[in-house]
């Protein structure tokens, strides 16, 4: 029997984490250091951030994004790049308030600049209302709104990249889902860093090799004020959820499968894709000037169908007035 006497592989303290793929047992302090080092190595391996960069962190208030904030803040001091936080308040009753509180609490503690964009303030409607009025599923509208606001906020603030808290498990789930659906073009987007295009900022995923269980344990051990709740609109029986469960069983039986998968995905994603075909369909929105696959971007289309006019341009102007001197 190992525990409760199991000791850290680096010191004599009590172990709280087993890293099966690295054959390590770690105490609280060495676990936190290990995860931070993992993110640092990912940044260096995939050239995600350089000295002088201005990185906008998209933080929802859950365990993954608060881990992203906590680690990127620490690394920004050491690697000499700047960070600011963007939080999008979707106005989902009984859920969004708690997430907002989590983000405010940790940004305040670290002293990181915070931009909060409330859908109610910028569009006059909440996410559930936007979904209802545009007759689209909440998760689809949520994705469109978040991607648009992250990109717009990064462009208007002069950021060099947007960082999201997508974990290894998220990327693997999207990749396998794309394979199951034979949607190879989506695979090209599942890289640690997407290139900037006209009307679109570069997106980076510093938690690319960090497992979801690892962000949970990091958040628990560091006592981050994360909101551990479920969005009321979450689809519990989604293909992604089944894929995550399946891959977690594989990882338990064959530790490090996730990392091997992701390293090869990062290497081959773009070559697997009919990139030229995709690029031809990329253009800018006639209304707001940001990236689109049609004459109007999805955000302008959704807002037009929900409130009667495309609001991309207005939203960009609103954000522009909010983010002045955010990096100073």
């Amino acid at each position, binding site marked *: 029997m190992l525990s409760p006497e*199991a000791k850290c592989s680096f010191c004599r303290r009590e172990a*709280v984490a087993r890293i099966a793929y690295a054959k390590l047992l770690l105490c609280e302090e060495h676990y936190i250091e290990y995860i931070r080092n993992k993110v640092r190595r990912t940044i260096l391996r995939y050239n995600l951030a350089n000295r002088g960069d201005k990185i906008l962190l998209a933080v929802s208030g859950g365990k993954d994004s608060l881990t992203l904030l906590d680690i990127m803040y620490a690394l920004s001091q050491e690697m000499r790049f700047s960070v600011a936080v963007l939080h999008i308040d979707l106005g989902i009753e009984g859920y969004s308030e708690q997430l907002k509180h989590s983000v405010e609490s940790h940004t305040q503690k670290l002293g990181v600049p915070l931009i909060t964009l409330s859908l109610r303030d910028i569009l006059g409607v909440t996410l559930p209302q936007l979904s209802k009025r545009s007759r689209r599923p909440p998760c689809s509208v949520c994705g469109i709104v978040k991607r648009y606001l992250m990109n717009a906020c990064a462009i208007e603030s002069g950021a060099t990249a947007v960082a999201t808290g997508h974990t290894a498990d998220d990327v693997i789930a999207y990749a396998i889902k794309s394979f199951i659906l034979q949607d190879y073009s989506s695979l090209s987007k599942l890289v640690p860093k997407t290139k900037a295009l006209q009307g679109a900022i570069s997106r980076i995923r510093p938690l690319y090799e960090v497992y979801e269980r690892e962000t949970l344990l990091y958040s628990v051990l560091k006592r981050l004020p994360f909101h551990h709740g479920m969005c009321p609109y979450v689809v519990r029986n989604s293909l992604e959820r089944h894929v995550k469960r399946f891959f977690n069983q594989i990882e338990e039986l064959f530790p490090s499968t996730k990392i091997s998968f992701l390293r090869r995905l990062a290497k081959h994603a773009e070559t697997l894709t009919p990139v030229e075909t995709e690029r031809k369909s990329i253009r800018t929105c006639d209304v707001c000037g940001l990236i689109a696959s049609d004459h109007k971007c999805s955000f302008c289309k959704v807002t037009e169908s929900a409130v009667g006019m495309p609001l991309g341009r207005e939203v960009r102007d609103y954000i522009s007035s909010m983010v002045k001197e955010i990096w100073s």
Partner: protein
Amino acid sequence: MVIKVRIVPENKEVEVRGGNRRVRELLKELGLSLEEAVVVKNGRVVLDDEVVKDGESVEVLLAVSGG
């Protein structure tokens, strides 16, 4: 006697009978792999090999994202 399990964020309470068992066995009985949860006993994170005794209570924190 039973082992009382609280599953978070589902806020589900489960009672497991059949005596002492290791954390990994407990998770398996709940249909979870080691990659899917963090287990906390008396406010302390416990390893998969640690034994949970009959009569004790644990919290199982699920790792799958909520949004």
